[in-house]
């Protein structure tokens, strides 16, 4: 019996052949935390009595959630992390030279095929787009890995998702993953790996793959994963100067389930409150006026997302009743958006264009919703209270729907602009 790509990565990291269901101790290639989760990890790490982390070149700290610091307590948490990172000689990305962790790490060539990556952030599964086994854990698990260089995993079963057909123009990775979660539910892949395959995936650009892997957690998955192909290698050639060892699933690998979709007729989608699985076509939700649009996050804050938004906002104005907040995923994305003239388009349209932060996605700052307000957001979660007041509404969408909604002042697809 063959193995899935996930089983191969975990077998390699465990030093023995492992099977789904068993618990294995695996070596980690990268351990990451952020300004919210690091203080707890650092406190727990110190309990071991160790003075040094197992390998500072493999331990990464990214301030991104509440920075530039939103208040004194946030500043103090970021300070705890900064001081520990510098003292350890670990990998550290400062404000103004970095951005959102899941945008920054790939940009810096730190997430490579075949690796085991764990992070104290649930969207660590993003790196599955690069053929890595990457999963989120809590601060204490991360502290243990910082000490030992290993972690334990229950080897997950794999669900194979096969996407057939041809993707219509203007439909991207966000629509594909919202569609998938709408089909299987928020616990449809609980404890499992979602392996994304098929002709549609083969033809999909990396930023779309990243958006899909990012939201695997929203279906309850341990992670999402893609094969390493020419697009992956081309993307990595720009940023990574280290060799890597991709893995592919064997033809006779065993899957817990195989789910096939034909996505030739897919429409621009939204997820209505309060679950990411509450998915409808954007043009079929009726007249839903909005107060705010947020474009950015680890899901859709990359340059290709901003290019799609600029195409729609160029020569148009944000609706008078709407605050449109555009947040590049990283300093690199911000620089590129400025260079290409996208920032000018956003500012001329009446949108906010800020420095990189997770800010509003988790209700931190930079766009908190008041009671009764409604927001279209390119982020990944629309749970109650996530972006502010518990009686506010978050509607998830891809960048095109978000931009069209900003112009029209209601939930809408780009087709409604004409």
């Amino acid at each position, binding site marked *: 019996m063959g193995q899935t790509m996930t089983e191969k990565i975990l077998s390699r990291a465990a030093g023995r052949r492992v099977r789904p269901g068993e618990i294995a101790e695996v070596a980690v290639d990268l351990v990451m935390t952020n300004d919210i989760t690091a203080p707890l990890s650092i406190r727990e790490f110190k309990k071991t009595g160790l003075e040094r982390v197992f390998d500072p070149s493999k331990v990464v700290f990214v301030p991104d959630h509440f920075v530039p610091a939103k208040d004194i307590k946030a500043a103090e948490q970021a300070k705890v992390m900064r001081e520990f990172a510098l003292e350890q000689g670990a990998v550290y990305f400062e404000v103004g030279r970095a951005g959102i962790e899941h945008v920054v790490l790939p940009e810096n060539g730190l997430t490579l095929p075949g690796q085991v990556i764990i992070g104290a952030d649930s969207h660590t599964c993003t790196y599955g787009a690069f053929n890595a086994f990457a999963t989120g854990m809590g601060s204490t698990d991360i502290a243990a890995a910082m000490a030992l260089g290993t972690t334990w995993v229950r080897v997950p079963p794999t669900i194979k998702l096969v996407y057939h057909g041809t993707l219509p123009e203007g439909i991207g990775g966000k629509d594909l993953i919202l569609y998938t979660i709408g089909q299987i539910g928020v616990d449809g892949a*609980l404890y499992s790996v979602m392996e994304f395959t098929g002709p549609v995936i083969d033809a999909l650009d990396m930023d779309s793959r990243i958006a899909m892997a990012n939201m695997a957690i929203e279906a309850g998955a341990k992670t999402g994963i893609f094969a390493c192909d020419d697009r992956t290698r081309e993307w990595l050639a720009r940023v990574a100067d280290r060799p890597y060892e991709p893995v592919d699933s064997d033809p006779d690998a065993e899957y817990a389930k195989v789910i096939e979709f034909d996505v030739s007729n897919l429409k621009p989608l939204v997820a209505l409150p309060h679950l990411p699985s509450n998915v409808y076509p954007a043009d079929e939700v009726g007249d839903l006026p909005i107060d705010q649009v947020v474009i950015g996050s680890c899901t859709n804050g990359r340059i290709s997302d901003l290019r799609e938004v600029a195409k729609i906002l160029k020569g148009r104005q944000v609706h008078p009743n709407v605050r449109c907040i555009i947040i590049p995923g990283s300093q690199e994305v911000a620089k590129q958006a400025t260079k290409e003239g996208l920032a000018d388009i956003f500012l001329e349209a009446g949108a906010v264009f800020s420095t990189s932060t997770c800010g509003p996605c988790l*209700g931190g700052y930079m766009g908190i919703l008041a009671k009764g307000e409604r927001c279209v957001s390119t982020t990944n979660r629309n749970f109650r209270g996530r972006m502010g007041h518990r009686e506010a509404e978050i509607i998830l969408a891809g960048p095109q729907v978000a931009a069209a909604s900003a112009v029209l002042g209601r939930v809408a697809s780009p087709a409604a602009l004409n």
Partner: protein
Amino acid sequence: MLIRGKVWKFGDDIDTDVIIPARYLVTIDPAELAKHVMEDIDPSFAGKVQPGDIIVAGKNFGCGSSREHAPMAIKGAGVAAVVAESYARIFFRNAINIGLPVIEAADAAREAENGDILEIDTDEGYVLNTRTGKSYPTARYDAYIQDIIDAGGLMEAVTRRVQARRGEQQVS
């Protein structure tokens, strides 16, 4: 371990944003977090829950973010255990790591009502609903996970290993 407590019942897909909203993630003090536990699903919960009470919920409890602050807030409020139909995996790990008992018992969770008294015996492996008299068997944890529980939490287990490794180095 024997736990006996009053039930607070919640539904499916209780996410970490309602267990502890992100606006409170500027501290790692359990007592401070406990003041806001479950605030966005029941703003009065933190004022009502008593030490020793039990949270009972449906499917996929703790879904969403990796914030360990979620089980910390629950434990900080004095909740003795969570019984649910199923758990999101990161929450489950976090709870085990910090010593919050999490029991997967689908029927017991479904059939329990607000205010019921549950008796949980983690050694014998059952949940008893004292109102109905019905007892539900529960599965044992994997040996690996039981070792973490027995050590008193993940860092206690890791610290033992680190110390053992040091001891070996000194001998050699």
